[in-house]
Structure formats: structure tokens, C-alpha cells
């Protein structure tokens, strides 16, 4: 794990009971996780009365360092022993290491979901709606009498946050072809997950 000096110094500072007593340590740690995972969180997360006695610059430094370290660990899917080893090197006492690992374990899934959702991908289909019509005539053609489908795919773009729709029409044979192919894909998926 490559950590910058800024981050390393910040984490090491957290080990020092002189800078952070037990209570302050717990609060800061929780604040770090909260900043990462709570969409509504802002700087007020550090506005706790039990943290007021600490120099704001130090507070921000350690908060940022802790958050960065947590992200790096989650990114690499670090396990408890990796965390323990690093924190030991930073001179954390046993109690603080246990606390850190417990908080990390509790939040690991959410962190992974968060990190996994970052990145670009193709437009993502979220839903489908359809309409069945029975066509009788148009101005060009009378006595048609055939069923026609309109299908709309709801699509989400990760980056632009737009929700375009893709609509098309098809007749019964084409819809059967479409459904057949999607069923093949679903079956392959099922088989692949059983291997």
C-alpha cells in the first residue's frame, strides 16, 4: 500500500494518546467513516464538543489521513492482519487497533459498494416497458390486421446522470427473437455462476 507522507504522519499522530485521548480517537475514527459513507456528511462531522480542545489543523490532518488510509485499505480489500501490521508500525496500542479493525469490518461492505460504483461504464439498462398494438390501417395501407409491439428500454448513464430512453418497434417474430436471445444470455449466466 503506497501512502504519502502526509497520510502516514496523520495516521501516526492518531496513535498518540497525548494528541488524541481514547474518546477523541473513537470520535475521529467514526467521523472518518461517516465522511466517506454518509452522503449528507460535511465538515460539521468534526464539530463534536469532545474534539474542540484539539487544534483544528491537527484535527483536519488526521481526519483526512484516516479517511485516505481507510479508502486505500478498502480498495485493496485489506484483511485484519494487514491493517494490524501497519497500525502496529505506527505505534497504535492494542485497544486502538481493535477499534479500528472493528469499525473497518463493520463498514467494509459499504465501502466496497461505494468504490465499486465509481468509474465509467456503458449505458446501463434499468427497466423495460412495452406496448402491444393491433394495427388496422394507415393512410398508406389498409386492412393490415397485425399485432405490433413498442418496446422502451430505460437507460442510465453513470457519468452524465441522464436517463435517455431507447424505443423501438417490432413485430411478434422479432420480439420472439429478442426474447430468445436474452433468455440464452440469462441461461449462460446461470451456468457460469454454477461453475
Amino acid at each position, binding site marked *: 500500500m503506497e501512502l504519502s507522507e502526509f497520510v502516514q504522519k496523520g495516521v501516526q499522530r492518531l496513535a498518540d494518546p497525548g494528541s488524541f485521548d481514547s474518546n477523541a480517537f473513537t470520535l475521529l475514527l467514526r467521523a472518518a467513516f461517516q465522511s466517506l459513507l454518509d452522503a449528507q456528511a460535511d465538515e460539521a462531522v468534526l464539530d463534536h464538543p469532545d474534539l474542540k480542545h484539539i487544534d483544528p489543523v491537527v484535527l483536519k490532518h488526521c481526519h483526512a489521513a484516516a479517511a485516505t488510509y481507510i479508502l486505500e485499505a*478498502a*480498495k*485493496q*480489500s485489506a484483511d485484519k492482519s494487514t491493517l494490524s501490521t501497519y497500525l502496529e508500525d505506527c505505534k497504535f496500542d492494542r485497544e486502538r487497533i481493535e477499534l479500528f479493525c472493528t469499525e473497518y469490518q463493520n463498514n467494509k461492505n459499504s465501502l*466496497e459498494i461505494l*468504490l*465499486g460504483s*465509481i*468509474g465509467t*461504464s*456503458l*449505458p*446501463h*439498462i*434499468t*427497466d*423495460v*416497458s*412495452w406496448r*402491444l398494438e*393491433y394495427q*388496422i390501417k*394507415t393512410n*398508406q*395501407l*389498409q*386492412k*393490415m*390486421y397485425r*399485432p405490433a*409491439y*413498442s*418496446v422502451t*428500454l430505460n*437507460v442510465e448513464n453513470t457519468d452524465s446522470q441522464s436517463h435517455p430512453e*431507447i*424505443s*423501438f*418497434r*417490432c413485430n*411478434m417474430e*422479432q*420480439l*420472439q*427473437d*429478442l*426474447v430468445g*436471445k*436474452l*433468455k*440464452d*444470455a*440469462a441461461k*449462460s*449466466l446461470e451456468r*457460469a*455462476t454454477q461453475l
Partner: protein
Amino acid sequence: MLLDLSEEHKEHLAFLPRVDSAVVAEFGRIAVEFLRRGANPKIYEGAARKLSVSTDTVQHGVEGLTYLLTESSKLLISELDFQDSVFVLGFSEELNKLLLQLYLDNRKEIRTILSELAPDLPSYHSLEWRLDVQLASRSLRQQIKPSVTIKLRLNQNGAHTTQVLQTDPATLVRLVQQLEQALEEMKTNHCRRVVRNVK
């Protein structure tokens, strides 16, 4: 239902009895080509020269024939109605039979062409799919994230468009479910009743 032929239309068709049946058959072929691919002035010029008439006459003759065929196909009139409609033109029985045969031979294709005339929405052409598993990204290593990549080809006004999309396994199952329901709808009593009674 009889066809309503305007005076101008009758005038254009009046050219047909003046040529022999092989030429009429040829004009019929040109008329259907016209529907498939649009007008080809060179053909008109060639025919006009061979028949020693003006290009306009040939063009009107073909267009008149085209209109006769498309109107008949559009309304899907019966053989009897077609014969009665053409009867007013005062053509020979041989020519009438030829025109009827042209109608019967080509009406299915003409109806197909007519049905493609006003595509408002893109229509489905084909679909290809691929299974992927994402293993890692810049922000997260050691992932196992299955997804399905889909290439959807659509036709719009003759042009092909391609959309590349992705979906997750759960949504895929839902897509299949929803669209199978759509297919099943046609077999319900309600739809069957509509199909039976709307004629």
C-alpha cells in the same frame, strides 16, 4: 370496393392498349422496381426510344400503372373488384387479364413496401450479447461483478443504428420476464376476441 380512377389517371393508362402485352408486362416490372428503388429516368428514355413515343408518355404510363397497383394493394381489393374497376378503362380482355395477374403477383410485396413507408420509431433489427465479469477497476480491486453487454441494432428510415448497452443479471431476468409477458398477451382471450372481431 371499386377503385376510383381520376380522368388524368385514365389518360395515363390509355397508353397501355397501344403497346403489346410484353411491353405492358415490362412496364409492370418497372412499376414495381419504381416502388422498390425509386424512379430511373434512363429506363424511361430507353423505352421511349424503342417505342417511338415521348419520355413523358412512358413515364405517365408507368406511374399510372404504379398508382393502380398500389391503390389496389393498399385496399387489398378482391379480384372481382379489381376487374370491375379496370373494366371502365375499356381495355381488351387480354390486357385486363394481364393487369389482374400483375396485381395478384405483386400485391404482397407492394403491401410490404407500403408498410415500410412511415417508420416513426426505429425498428428492431438484431441483438448480440456478451457475458463479462469485472475483476478490478481503478477504485476497487478484487471484484467479481458479472454483467451482460448487449449490442442492439435498430433500423430507422433505412439507416442502421447500433446501441451498446449493459445490464446486470437481475435486470436481465426482469427484462426476459417482462417481454415474455408481452408475448403472452397476444394469446389472452381479450386479444383473441379483438383479432376475431376487428375485420
